[in-house]
């Protein structure tokens, strides 16, 4: 630790801190423009200059100069003030005075500094540059006439998000920030560039021209699009949500959001939002009162329970309940209703992995936290799509990789975002990740059944394999992330993770929804027995073992493959109760519809996948007449009567349907299907909430099939051409996209969730299917 003085205030900071950090700790204001805590300092604006009493006359930029012991820093000497003033005057030479029409007014760093330093004249004249305004990009408008060339957007996109979408072009006074070739933005739309721009050059189009920032009230809450539960600031104007930004980076907060959090908030007011309870009468759904609807649901459930047993009522949860609600629901389901199977589709993979981890250890498992992630120096990711399921993992991992000798090993069957960043990429053949994990476990496990070298037959470079095994045996600080396949079984990768649990620092299962972690760990909102998932659910319904379905924000029709089969099964059910915020496909089959509030409309706590606990207060009132799930529960419990119902003995554990081992992937079915297609998660979200946002839909553009550049050209396709995709199971139209990283003869299917045609292409348990592409009209 070193001690120095800033404006005669003594302060102690760790060695290696910058002068700016010391000044901050001392509570002294130093102006900055190009500085953002989330990224490395840059030294471009030169506003942060200070003077050292021992070296008068020499101006030191404080944002990157290391503080030294016994320095005596002064921040407001005449030389410093003159330099800052001149600097601001120079910046204003080219800056258009757009304040009256600029959205940033009121929260603009340049404006604040000009006022603070009382710049009232422009002795250097003004010269407005003829720079461009990009209005063509979705969601983000870039007005380069206002750009002060601080470089924050370039750096945050390059360093943190790893996308390098924006770069400085030309040099000197002709410098301008732009994309290659001047094209519209085509990136992750994480919104970090917008969040970092200190002036009004980068604007959120959802917010643009809506209102003034001083009319907004800011509430900090949590994004509920995925289980990372990033903190977000909701900006409200008289009870209406106007925009969402990442919560400021400070303390433990990373200050990150993704496209869903930043730009997906219009889902909350989507036309599909349910505002009133509904009942099915004479085949049609009509609005009803709460008491009536709840009473009806209670009676239906009670009837079925008495007739067929508690085990015949299954509950599927999308884990949008607070921990308190989940605990109450769990208790209710077990004690009052008798404990039918509880499962999840959107968080199915996550829950399955946890189940296996606990099974292996025999006790409640403690999964890794953000701290484990920070301090590990090896990250092993089992399964592809981790950063697509949880986009904020990308900047987290990028930031992590910068800190010294870090290794990122990714086992995946397709080139996902983390594979492209990996120092050790283990890319197996399509659909073979599970099999690989199984065999790797056998190679590593106590029995050492197969020699590790055999594993090269999965398509992995044996050198890379040797390095992976070396890493595992080296006993470094390892964290393992487990990314479930959406339609797969995931048991082998879970078992591998379970084996590694005792030998690594932390295991972090992924794929959880907004409060999956809280529901499972703190609320115990799971079945005592094997949970249901997609295929077993459908089979159980077909076999008549399940007669009623309680859906907490879930929709099997929009999430499971083979939707026609699912629909047939669902139509057999005696009772379907839909309790959720949105009207989706299954609502058309529901018997009772109970509108639920979204997480930010509720009170309670949630737990993120990385072990961070968040406390929520309602930021907005529940939409229409919707109610928090906890309230609905109270009404339901009341309607059922509080008499202790004898607990129906648990039905014999439903045989876990053996999902066909993925090795049985039918290769080319001989019908001219030269491609192998895999469904992969989407950066813009596959969950119901994300799909309700019209802005994210604009980025998705519907079903997408991605192929190699070679195949794209060979087929003679045009950019964004719609093609027909055919598999042995179904047929759909999708937009074709080319990607240099995709190997030949492979297809990646995106955005199938919510699309019946897209879902029909695959089957549960088969993560890779043969496919063919045909141009439409030929």
């Amino acid at each position, binding site marked *: 630790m070193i001690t120095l003085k800033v404006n005669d205030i003594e302060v102690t900071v760790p060695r290696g801190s910058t002068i700016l950090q010391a000044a901050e700790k001392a509570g002294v204001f130093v102006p900055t423009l190009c500085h953002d805590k989330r990224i490395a300092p840059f030294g471009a604006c030169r506003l942060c200059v200070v003077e050292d009493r021992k070296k008068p006359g020499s101006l030191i930029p404080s944002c990157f100069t290391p503080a030294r012991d016994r320095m005596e820093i002064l921040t407001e000497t005449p030389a410093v003030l003159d330099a800052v003033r001149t600097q601001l005057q120079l910046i204003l030479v080219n800056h258009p005075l757009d304040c009256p029409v600029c959205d940033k007014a009121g929260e603009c760093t340049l404006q604040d500094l000009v006022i603070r330093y009382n710049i009232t004249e422009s002795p250097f004249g003004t010269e407005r540059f003829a720079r461009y305004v990009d209005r063509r990009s979705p969601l983000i408008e870039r007005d380069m006439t206002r750009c002060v060339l601080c470089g924050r957007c370039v750096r945050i996109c390059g360093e943190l998000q790893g996308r390098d979408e924006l770069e400085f072009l030309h040099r000197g006074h002709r*410098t301008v920030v732009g994309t290659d070739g001047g094209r519209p933005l085509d990136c992750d739309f994480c919104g970090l560039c917008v969040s970092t721009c200190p002036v009004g050059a980068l604007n959120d189009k959802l917010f643009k021209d809506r209102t003034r920032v001083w009319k907004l009230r800011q509430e900090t809450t949590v994004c509920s699009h995925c289980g990372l539960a990033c903190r977000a600031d909701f900006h409200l104007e008289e009870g209406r949500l106007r925009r969402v930004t990442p919560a400021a980076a400070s303390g433990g907060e990373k200050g990150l959001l993704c496209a869903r959090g930043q730009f997906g908030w219009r889902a909350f007011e989507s036309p599909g939002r349910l505002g009133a309870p509904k009942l099915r009468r004479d085949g049609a759904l009509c609005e009803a009162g709460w008491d009536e609807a709840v009473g009806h649901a209670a009676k239906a459930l009670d009837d079925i329970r008495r007739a067929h047993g508690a085990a015949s009522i299954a509950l599927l949860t999308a884990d949008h309940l607070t921990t308190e609600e989940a605990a109450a629901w769990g208790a209710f389901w077990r004690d009052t209703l008798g404990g039918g199977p509880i499962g999840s589709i959107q968080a199915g993979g996550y829950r399955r992995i946890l189940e296996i981890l606990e099974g292996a250890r025999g006790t409640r498992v403690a999964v890794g936290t953000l701290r484990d992630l920070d301090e590990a120096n090896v990250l092993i990711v089992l399964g592809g799509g981790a950063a697509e399921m949880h986009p904020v993992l990308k900047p987290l991992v990028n930031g992590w990789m910068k800190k010294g000798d870090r290794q990122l090993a990714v086992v995946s069957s397709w080139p996902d975002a983390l594979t492209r960043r990996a120092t050790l990429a283990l890319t197996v053949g399509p659909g073979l990740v599970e099999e690989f994990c199984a065999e790797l476990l056998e190679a590593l496990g106590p029995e050492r059944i197969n020699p590790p070298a055999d594993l090269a037959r999965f398509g992995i470079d044996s050198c890379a394999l040797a390095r992976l095994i070396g890493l595992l045996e080296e006993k470094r600080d390892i964290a393992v992330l487990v990314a479930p396949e959406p339609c797969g079984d995931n048991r082998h990768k879970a078992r591998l993770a379970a084996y590694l649990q005792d030998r690594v620092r932390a295991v972090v299962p992924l794929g959880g929804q907004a409060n999956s972690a809280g529901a499972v760990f703190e609320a115990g909102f799971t079945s005592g027995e094997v949970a249901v998932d997609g295929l077993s659910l459908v089979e159980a319904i077909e076999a008549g073992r399940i007669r009623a379905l309680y859906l907490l924000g879930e929709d099997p029709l929009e999430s499971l493959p083979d939707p026609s089969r699912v629909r047939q099964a669902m139509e057999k059910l005696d009772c379907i109760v839909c309790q959720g915020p949105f009207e989706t496909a299954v609502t058309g089959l529901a018997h009772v519809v109970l509108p639920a509030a979204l997480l930010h409309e509720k009170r309670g706590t949630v737990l993120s996948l990385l072990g961070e606990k968040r406390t929520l207060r309602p930021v907005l009132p529940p939409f229409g007449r919707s109610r928090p799930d906890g309230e609905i529960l109270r009404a339901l419990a009341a309607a059922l009567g509080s008499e202790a119902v004898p607990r129906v003995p648990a039905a014999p554990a439903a045989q876990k349907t053996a999902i066909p081992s993925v090795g049985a992937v039918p290769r080319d079915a001989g019908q001219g299907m030269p491609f192998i297609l895999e469904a992969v998660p989407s950066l813009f979200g596959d969950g119901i909430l994300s799909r309700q946002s019209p802005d994210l839909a604009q980025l998705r553009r519907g079903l997408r099939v991605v192929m190699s550049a070679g195949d794209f050209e060979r087929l003679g396709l045009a950019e964004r051409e719609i093609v027909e995709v055919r598999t042995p199971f179904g047929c759909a139209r999708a937009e074709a996209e080319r990607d240099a990283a995709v190997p030949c003869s492979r297809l990646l299917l995106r955005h199938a969730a919510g699309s019946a045609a897209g879902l029909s292409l695959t089957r549960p348990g088969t993560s890779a299917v043969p496919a063919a592409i045909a141009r439409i009209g030929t």
Partner: protein
Amino acid sequence: MISSVSKIAYCASRSCKFRKPIDVRSLLERALDELGYRDRIGLVETECLISCYQGPSIMFLPGGKVFQVLSEEHFTETLKGFFASLQHPTSPLLSEPRTEKEIPGIEHLDFFAKQKLIVLRNRGHIDAESIEEYIAHDGYLALYKALTAMTPEEVIGEVKLSGLRGRGGAGFPTGTKWEEARKYAAFPKYVICNGDEGDPGAFMDRSVMESDPHAVLEGMIVCGYAIGARQGYIYVRAEYPLALRMLRTAIDRAREKGFLGRNVLGTGFDFDIDIYPGAGAFVCGESTALMYSIEGKRGMPRIKPPRSTESGLWGRPTCLNNVETFANIPRIILNGGAWFRAIGTEDSTGTKVFSLTGAVKNVGLVEVPMGTDLRTIIFEIGGGIRGNARFKAVQLGGPSGGCLTEQHLHLPVTFDSLQDAGAMMGSGGVVVMDDTNCMVDVARFFTQFSVDESCGKCVPCRVGLKVMLGTLEKIIVGQGEPSDLALLERQANHIAATSHCGLGQAAPNPVLSTLRYFHDEYEAHIREKRCPALVCTDLIRFEIDAEACKRCGLCAKVCPVNAISWQKKEPAVLHQEKCIRCKSCIRACRFKAIH
């Protein structure tokens, strides 16, 4: 002997003033016919064979013996006599070379005699593409000594002892830099040679790379050995195609002979060098920007710490030195650091190469011991001001340097000695100016250069320099106001104090030093709207002073639009409405009669 002659050359120079009207060719043809040698001996027409007033003459080839043809008569006999007088077939010489006494010895020519060549020791003397020649001139002996008889620490010790400081302009002690790079244990390490030489008017590095590329390679390999690197890069600006070619050839030859590649000289040390051409940016001569450029990124200087010796190219310890610095290394290793230290001054040891250009008689490359004063360089080595002009100023260090006046000519040139006078030695560019240079225009020229080359990262350089340029241009077109001078000074000081890298920090130097020493010239531009040096076109009235006019008519002759009318014995008259202000007349007039 006749058999030793295969051809006879005869001079047929049409411009020969002393030529007697003899048709030498027909003479020869007839004579050879008569002697019967016509078929065996060919005739070749040439230019002058001998000092002109002895023409016409003939020369026997291949021997080269020359005979004068004094008369046409009896030429056949004469020719026969010539043949007989031939001695040994290969004796090439005739009489004593007459004019040896007329050609001065190099050691009497100030330009050469006052220089001390270390870096340029092989200049013009060896074929740069021949590695054998370099070896024959003690090439690669230093490498041999370093690799087989010295430890890396000893090599560094010798370099430190020599006191060698970076020749690129910053003057950082080279030995210390190598020592720092050695101490970090992160691999691989890199050696980079900065051959970007962007200063306008500087061509020292170009000359070394073109004429003696192996010296650079040898220096780099020694550096690699000293710091523990296995890979070197030479960053050469793309505007030097010959240097690129010579270096490429040199690297190929060095690889063939085992000076580069694996197991150099059989010592187990691996080192290879690749060339990276630049892409036209002056700012990429700044070391961190240069490293980004090699990495394929945008050439913008980065924040420091960390220093490049700790984390440079691809985040690894990197030792970057200038071409001239590396070219000194072989001699330092061979002759010892103490030998080098004894040359020059105490804190600026060794020699420095300057590219002396501008208004001097002898424009060229000058290598002198550090501490040589400006007067020696400009007036003795440089031969003084050419033409009938007077010395006005000397600009050192290109766009980063300042100018000095007559009162500073006694100053010794070292890294630190010129600072108080507001100038710096820089990388070695020396531009001498006479009274046909306008100092305001000079300041504008260098500022324009810096504006064009600024990378654009930091506000003071990107915006400040442009604003400063605007003020200078305002003054030059005649719209200057008295307050502009204080404004210029303020802008310049701000840019110098707050810029991010050396480009911006030093770019205001030309403005600041010209303001300091030529304040009256600025005043003339602003208050009198007049350019004393007659350079700034908008401030020239284009009037002929009838009293000063010597009526030679030269101006009328050179005017491309016939705007000047002149009659013999009358002063010339300039018609403003036709004048296009090209200044040809001003340049032609030897009497300074046009203003």
